[in-house]
């Protein structure tokens, strides 16, 4: 079987919309174009029915009540609505927020914005394996803490936080607990009837649905209140105004239905591919896995290749579509803040690659990737004075570099 390049191994950035999903969406652009808020004719009724069916599918994947699901434009909006909405609603109780340094920017920047308007925030460092220490989390909470936000699955390193333990601590102390689950749906089981979580953000396009649609879970019992961030026609019980994007919502519903039905089988297959990739790459010297390997989704492998520079690495591997820990397009080289928070050196953070595997990845593609990495890493190390020094036994940390 031939392999077509570039090979897509960036499923954590986005996934293709599953053809079954796309097919379901199309009639809601053309035939069933009604506004779900139109109560006076069948065009509206058909659209409303489709929206409510989709709401049920989303709720089912995470074992929630459909009335707890609010449509948004994506996980970024869900995170903003949850964090700003809850912090502002409960600000009479206190003005302190706890989150983790490795959260997605949509969480970190929403918290930063709250700091700008008078809140205080604690950005807790994870352990070197990317996981949050439960006792350190407990210690970070204060009497005036109103909200804590911790992601379920990390987007860069794929580690899975112990949401149940963290949520129980928040429950004990009456703190609203928000969880960004954008990277988690279809990858880990989520049972919101059991999990002590008040707010949870979802995205469709990370789970083979369309871009531009997401949802926020807002717990009903005990009831969680939010201040709306988008004002208008009072859609979604006033929490998020704006005409519902019926076709997008139908797509998210179908994507989440497929995820619920197929995730067990799919995850087993993806885990085999990921382990094959890991075994292959570990035949290369001086490679370091970033993030815990046990408490991790099977879809993610984040690896640093020592003694090669990140941007040249990305150039070398243009036959595969992956993400790098290095933001090279900016004037100042900025290594991944997630890897830095784990205590990785700048060099290792720069030379990291996130491989994320998904529904359409094949074994041939994994084997091609292993061979490509072996040959390109070899070539770049041949070029690298640092690799040469390493082979000569020079301790690079003791060298005095002529910094510029």
């Amino acid at each position, binding site marked *: 079987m031939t392999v077509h390049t570039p090979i897509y191994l960036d499923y954590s950035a986005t996934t293709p919309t599953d053809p079954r999903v796309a097919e379901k969406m199309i009639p809601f652009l053309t035939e069933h174009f009604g506004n779900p808020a139109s109560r006076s004719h069948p065009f509206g009724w058909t659209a409303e029915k489709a929206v409510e069916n989709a709401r049920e599918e989303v709720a089912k994947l995470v074992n929630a009540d459909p009335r707890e699901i609010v449509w948004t434009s994506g996980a970024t909006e869900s995170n903003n609505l949850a964090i700003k909405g809850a912090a502002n609603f409960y600000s009479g109780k206190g003005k302190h927020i706890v989150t983790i340094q490795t959260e997605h920017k949509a969480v970190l920047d929403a918290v930063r914005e709250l700091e700008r308007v008078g809140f205080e925030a604690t950005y807790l460092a994870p352990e070197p394996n990317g996981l949050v220490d439960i006792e350190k989390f407990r210690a970070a909470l204060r009497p005036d803490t109103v909200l804590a936000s911790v992601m379920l699955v990390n987007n860069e390193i794929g580690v899975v936080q112990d949401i149940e333990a963290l949520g129980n601590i928040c429950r004990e102390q009456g703190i609203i607990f928000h969880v960004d689950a954008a990277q988690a749906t279809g990858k880990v089981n989520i049972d919101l009837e059991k999990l002590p979580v008040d707010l949870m953000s979802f995205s469709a396009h990370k789970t083979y649905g369309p871009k531009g649609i997401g949802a926020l879970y807002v717990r009903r019992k005990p009831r969680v209140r939010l201040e709306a961030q988008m004002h208008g026609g009072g859609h979604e019980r006033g929490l998020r105004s704006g005409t519902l994007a019926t076709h997008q919502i139908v797509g998210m519903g179908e994507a989440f239905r497929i995820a619920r039905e197929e995730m067990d089988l799919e995850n087993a297959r993806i885990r085999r591919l990921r382990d094959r990739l890991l075994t292959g790459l570990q035949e290369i010297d001086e490679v370091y896995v970033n993030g815990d390997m046990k408490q991790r989704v099977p879809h993610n492998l984040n690896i640093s290749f020592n003694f090669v520079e*990140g941007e*040249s690495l990305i150039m070398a591997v243009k036959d595969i579509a992956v993400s790098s820990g290095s933001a090279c*397009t900016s004037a100042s080289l900025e290594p991944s803040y997630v890897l830095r928070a784990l205590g990785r*050196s700048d060099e290792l953070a720069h030379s990291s690659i996130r491989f994320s595997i998904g529904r359409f990845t094949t074994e041939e593609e994994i084997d091609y990737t292993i061979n490509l990495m072996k040959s390109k890493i070899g070539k770049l190390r041949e*070029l690298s004075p640092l690799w040469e020094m390493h082979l000569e036994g020079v301790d690079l940390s003791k060298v005095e*570099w002529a910094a510029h």
Partner: protein
Amino acid sequence: MAYSDKVLDHYENPRNVGTLDKNDPTVGTGMVGAPACGDVMKLQIKVNEAGVIEDAKFKTYGCGSAIASSSLVTEWIKGKTLDQVMEIKNSDIAEELALPPVKIHCSVLAEDAIRAAVADLKAKQGNTQEAA
């Protein structure tokens, strides 16, 4: 980031990659940059009795532009005298490779590498002359 064809060519087929014996009295070695800054260049030159660079080798840890800048200077400096290579400016390198503004530092580093290699060689030869 879009690279110029010349950068891509040097990156895909770097010229004069390798290592010369750094203990050879006719070899000058310049190592500039730092791993934490994202680039380290090692440039080595070997001069003949007439003071002309007859061989040059490099190794670079860095982005495509850094690799291309160092590869290019090894081509430029071969056959030139030490005084001539000291006249190579980073702007010449940046212009030849059509480096974008965010990559100008790569050409600066390549210029620094030439100067460091020449300085190393002169220091070595100064020492030998004094000893003789």
